[in-house]
């Protein structure tokens, strides 16, 4: 890979060990992909996680004096104080989370602690070159917004934020953004949960690729697109997709395939989605918790939970959680949503990911969620997946099925 004189000086350690390590990682990636050179980015999103692997790298950069050159937002860890008051979070785990959050502050990241940063804290524009990690944010940024990012890891995105550059490869090159699989949708997509099932099914069928959809009849909502992005990256790796007519980059199917033909075609009917749904129905009977907000609920979704819980009471034996971003919570409080949810006996928590050790109290518990991504990581004995409305109903009844 071609390196400028300045990049060579960074690699020689002239600007400190932190920037040196950051660029070393980017060069390794560039070499792996035969990238010709580094290109400037205008923003990054680091999928911080409060886990040991994350801690190792961010502290390495922080100790080495690295500091973000472009706006770099962060993914959820957990609200240590909130959980400390409720459960016994293991001391060593809480210490890892505390150190991670401290180190991201030291490297000058924006402490958003949100997995949907493109909603408020860090919004790319069409055509912008960026480095966004978080497997649900990558396809959203590429497809819905039409900015350009590769499927970054937390570390490569942070490194890109520190250097202000990324290697030119993959989805930064127009030809690599062409569709690979044609997906003919015959299923009726009614609501956000249908897009969850669609994402899960398509991710599982395609695995790794750029699907191009036909047959989607109406403009999907922001939340439906967020769900598709998140769930297609649970059983698969979908960093980009096209819904010609609704997503921005290609207005026709031909344009999405850049004149080529699909490598593969699949059809999705109501039958496939129903089968997916049935696969996720893993239990019934008494439940201990309901977990919502994986990915983080938007303001609109928090409002929907409040509407469903208004004047109701969550069953005594059920813990009810809504995870959202700090920015969404400010408005949710202003609109009275948080009060309504609290009055019903629920929690609205910020900065928190469902895949964190703060949930240890539920390790042997059975519950429900509207997110296959939440169920997949096995923080709980069992987390059954169904629609939000059913989750709320079960929370009130204390049981499902």
């Amino acid at each position, binding site marked *: 890979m071609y390196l400028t004189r300045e990049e060579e000086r960074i690699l020689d350690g002239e600007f400190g060990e932190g920037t040196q390590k950051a660029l070393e990682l980017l060069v390794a990636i560039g070499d792996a992909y035969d990238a010709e050179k580094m290109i400037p980015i205008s923003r990054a999103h680091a999928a911080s996680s409060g886990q040991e*692997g994350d801690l190792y790298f961010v502290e390495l950069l922080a100790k080495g004096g690295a500091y973000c050159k472009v706006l770099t937002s962060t993914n959820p860890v957990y609200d240590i104080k909130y959980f400390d008051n409720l459960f016994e979070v293991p001391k060593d785990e809480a210490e890892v989370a505390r150190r991670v959050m401290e180190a991201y502050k030291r490297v000058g990241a924006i402490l958003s602690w949100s997995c949907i940063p493109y909603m408020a804290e860090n919004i790319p524009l069409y055509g912008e070159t960026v480095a966004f990690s978080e497997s649900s944010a990558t396809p959203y940024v590429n497809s819905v917004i039409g900015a350009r990012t590769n499927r970054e890891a937390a570390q490569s995105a942070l490194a890109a934020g520190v250097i202000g550059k990324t290697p030119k490869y993959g989805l930064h090159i127009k030809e690599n953004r062409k569709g690979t699989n044609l997906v003919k949708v015959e299923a009726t997509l009614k609501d956000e949960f249908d897009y969850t099932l669609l994402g899960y099914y398509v991710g599982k069928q395609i695995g790794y690729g750029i699907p191009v959809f036909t047959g989607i009849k109406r403009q999907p909502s922001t939340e439906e697109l967020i769900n598709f992005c998140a769930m297609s990256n649970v059983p698969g790796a979908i960093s980009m997709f096209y819904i010609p007519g609704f997503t921005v980059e290609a207005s026709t199917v031909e344009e999405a395939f850049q004149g080529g033909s699909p490598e593969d075609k699949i059809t999705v009917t109501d039958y496939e989605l129903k089968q997916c749904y049935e696969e996720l129905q893993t239990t019934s009977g008494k439940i201990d918790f309901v977990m919502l907000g994986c990915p983080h609920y938007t303001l609109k979704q928090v409002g929907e939970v409040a509407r469903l819980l208004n004047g109701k009471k969550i069953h005594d034996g059920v813990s009810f959680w809504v995870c959202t971003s700090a920015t969404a919570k400010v408005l949710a409080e202003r609109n009275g949503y948080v009060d309504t949810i609290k009055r019903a006996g629920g929690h609205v928590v910020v900065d928190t990911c469902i895949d964190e050790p703060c949930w240890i109290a539920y390790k042997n518990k059975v519950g429900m969620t509207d997110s296959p991504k939440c169920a997949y990581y096995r923080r709980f004995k069992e987390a059954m997946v169904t629609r939000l409305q059913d989750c709320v109903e079960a929370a009130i009844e204390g049981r499902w099925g």
Partner: protein
Amino acid sequence: MKNLEITLKCHKIVGGYGEGEALVSNEPICFYLTDPKTGIVRERSHELAGKNLANKVLVFPSGKASSVVQIDGLFKLASHNNAPKAMIVKDVETVLIVSAFMVKVPLVDRLERDPFETIQTGDFIKVNAEKGIVIITKRES
């Protein structure tokens, strides 16, 4: 009888040398869904469910699942000395490169022959990523 030995060129992604018994997976792998203390795959529906990938040379198509957990998964395996000795993949992706870079496990792709046709579980594999060479010693049948 001397075992059949095959030498293939490959493309270095993360440098270094590693050798061990091959473990082949036709499905993508998420390291988070393994037990870091043993190296056993605990993803129920995976073809490697119950198999141990510690200190093996892992042959698989690509990584999968969220970027956050993939890296942490390999990092935890490595901190218990249960990471694979080397990795041979078909579709390279950034998350896997970062994972391998952080734990210093050699990672290669672009073998001059299809690794899924050439390598079987149990073969002995030497991966010299620096030299861009993979040496396969076929298991006695």
